[in-house]
C-alpha cells in the first residue's frame, strides 16, 4: 500500500519554477530517498507533503488524506525533522520530549525514546549545551515521539562528523525495523546508497529518475572500465568479446572498456589462454555517476 502519493506537483515563486511536475509514491515500510543537489525542490516537495506549504497545482495523499484539508489528522500520524530548526536554548531535553509528546493523541513514552536514542544521561541538559550529534538525535526522537506511521527526516546528517553519521544511519535502520516508513531527504550520495530502498532523484524541480540505488547505478548508459597489468603469457584479442567496446594497451597496462557483464567474459577469456594478470580493478559505478548520467552535470558542481 502506498502511504504517500504525489501527483504532478507544481509550484512557482514569481518567475522561478521550484516544482515542475513532481510525481512519486512511497510504499509502507520502506526508506524512501529524495536525492538531489541543494535548490532542486526536495525540501519544498517534502514540505508540501507535510502540509507546511501548498503547491500551486497537483495532488497529494498522505495515508489516504489531504495534508491541507485534513491537516490535523495527517500531522497526528507523521513525525517531522526539519532542516534549520532549533529549540529554545534553555529547554531541557526531557522537557522538549515531554512537551512534544503532549501534542499527540497517542504518544510514545518519551523515557523509552531517551534510552533508545542514547540521551538518557542528557535528560536534564539544556538544548544549547548539546553537541551537534546529540541535538540531531533529539530532533529524531522528537520526530518519533508522536508514534508516527511516517517519519520525514530532512538533511539529518549535515554537519555531523563521519562517526556520528555512521551511528545515525544505524539508528535510521532501527526506525524502519520498528515499522515506521521513512522519507529521507539528502544531498549525500553515500547516505542514500547506504539507507534507501528506493530513491527519487531530483533535478531542477523534476524527478529525473526513481529506482533502487543499485537500479539507478545499473541503469547508467555509459561504459565501465576494467584495468589490469600483464604478468605472464601472451595477451589475447579481447575486442570481439560480448559487451567489450574498446581495448587500449600501454606497455603491460591494459584498459578494457565495456558494458553489462563484459568483465566476466574478459576474465574467462584470459584464464582460458593462461594469461596471468595483476592489479585487476573494475571501477565501481556509484550514484554520483548515475547523477551525472541522468542530468549531464556533476553533482558537486551545483552546490
Amino acid at each position, binding site marked *: 500500500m502506498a502511504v504517500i502519493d504525489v501527483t504532478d506537483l507544481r509550484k512557482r515563486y514569481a518567475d522561478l519554477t521550484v516544482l515542475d511536475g513532481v510525481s512519486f509514491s512511497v510504499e509502507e515500510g520502506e526508506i524512501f530517498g529524495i536525492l538531489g543537489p541543494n535548490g532542486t525542490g526536495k525540501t519544498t516537495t517534502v514540505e508540501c507533503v*507535510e*502540509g*507546511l506549504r501548498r503547491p500551486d497545482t497537483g495532488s497529494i495523499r498522505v495515508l489516504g488524506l489531504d495534508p491541507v484539508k485534513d491537516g*490535523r489528522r495527517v*500531522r*497526528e500520524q*507523521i513525525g*517531522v525533522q*526539519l532542516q*534549520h*530548526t*532549533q*529549540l*529554545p536554548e*534553555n*529547554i531541557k531535553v526531557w*522537557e522538549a520530549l*515531554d*512537551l*512534544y509528546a*503532549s*501534542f*499527540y*493523541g497517542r504518544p510514545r513514552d518519551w523515557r523509552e525514546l531517551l534510552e533508545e536514542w542514547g540521551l538518557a544521561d542528557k535528560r536534564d541538559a539544556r538544548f544549547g549545551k548539546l553537541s551537534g550529534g546529540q541535538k540531531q538525535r533529539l530532533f529524531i526522537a522528537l520526530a518519533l515521539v*508522536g508514534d508516527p506511521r511516517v517519519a520525514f527526516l530532512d538533511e539529518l546528517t549535515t554537519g555531523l562528523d563521519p562517526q556520528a553519521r555512521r551511528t545515525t544511519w544505524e539508528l535510521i535502520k532501527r526506525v524502519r525495523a520498528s515499522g515506521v516508513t521513512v522519507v529521507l531527504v539528502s544531498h549525500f550520495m553515500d547516505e542514500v546508497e547506504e539507507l534507501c530502498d528506493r530513491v527519487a532523484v531530483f533535478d531542477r524541480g523534476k524527478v529525473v529518475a526513481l529506482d533502487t540505488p543499485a537500479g539507478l547505478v545499473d541503469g547508467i548508459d555509459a561504459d565501465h572500465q576494467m584495468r589490469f597489468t600483464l604478468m605472464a603469457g601472451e595477451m589475447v584479442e579481447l575486442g570481439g568479446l560480448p559487451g567489450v567496446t574498446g581495448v587500449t594497451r600501454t606497455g603491460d597496462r591494459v584498459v578494457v572498456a565495456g558494458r553489462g557483464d563484459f568483465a566476466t567474459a574478459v576474465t574467462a577469456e584470459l584464464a582460458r589462454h593462461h594469461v596471468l594478470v595483476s592489479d585487476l580493478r573494475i571501477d565501481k559505478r556509484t550514484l554520483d555517476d548515475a547523477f551525472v548520467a541522468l542530468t549531464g552535470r556533476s553533482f558537486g558542481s551545483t552546490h
Partner: protein
Amino acid sequence: MTKLAVVELKLLTREPGAIFSLLIPLFILVVFGSSIEPGDTVLLPMALAIAVGLVGLYLLPTTLATYRERGILRRLSATPVRPANLLVVQLLLQLVLALAACALLLAVAGTVLGAHLPTGVLPGVLTFLVGTAALFAVGLLIAALAPNGRAANGIGVLLYFPMAYLAGLMQPTDQMPDIVARIGEYTPLGAFRQCLRDVWEGGAPSPLLLGVMAAYAVVISIAAARFFRWE
C-alpha cells in the same frame, strides 16, 4: 496547552531579560525613591510605565522574533498543535510578567518606601490593561517586522529610548520643551504614564488618552497581524 504554558513559564524564568525587566524599574524606584516627598505622584507611575514598556517593547518582540528565527514556530506547525497557541501562551505569560513587575514595584513602594498608593482601583486596573495592550501591540508589530531576534532586540531598544524620553521617563515633562511634552503625551508610553499619574492624583484617567491608547492597541495589532510571518 497547559504543558506548553508550563514549559514556556519555565523558559521565561531562565531568561535573563525577564529578570532585568523586573529589576531595572525596581532599581530606579529604590534609587530615586529614597528622596521623594510623601504623597509623590510622579515616581511610581514612571517606574510602572518603565516596567510595562520593557516587557512590551523589548522582551515580547525579542522572544517572538527569536522563536520564528529558530524555526520553532515552523516546527510546531508540523505537529497537531497550531503555532498560534504558542503566541497566545507567550502573550499571556508576558502579561503575567508585566503584572508581576508592577506588583513588585507597588509592594516595595508601599511598604519599604512608604509611597503614596492610589485609592481608585478600577481606574488603575483599566489604565493598566489599556496601556499594556497598546505597548504589547507595538511589541507585536516589532516582532512581525523584525527579520530575527537580534534585530527585534535592536529595534526594541532603539524605539524604547525615544519613546521613554517623549513619555517623560527620562526627565520630568515640565522640564521638557512644551511642544515635545504635548506630543509625548500622545505616544503609547506617554499616554500610559500620564493616565497612571491621573490615577495617582486621585482623579480619573483622561478619556481622550485612554481612547488614544485603545486606538493604538487596535490599529497596531491589526498591522502586526497583517505583517506577521510564521517563518
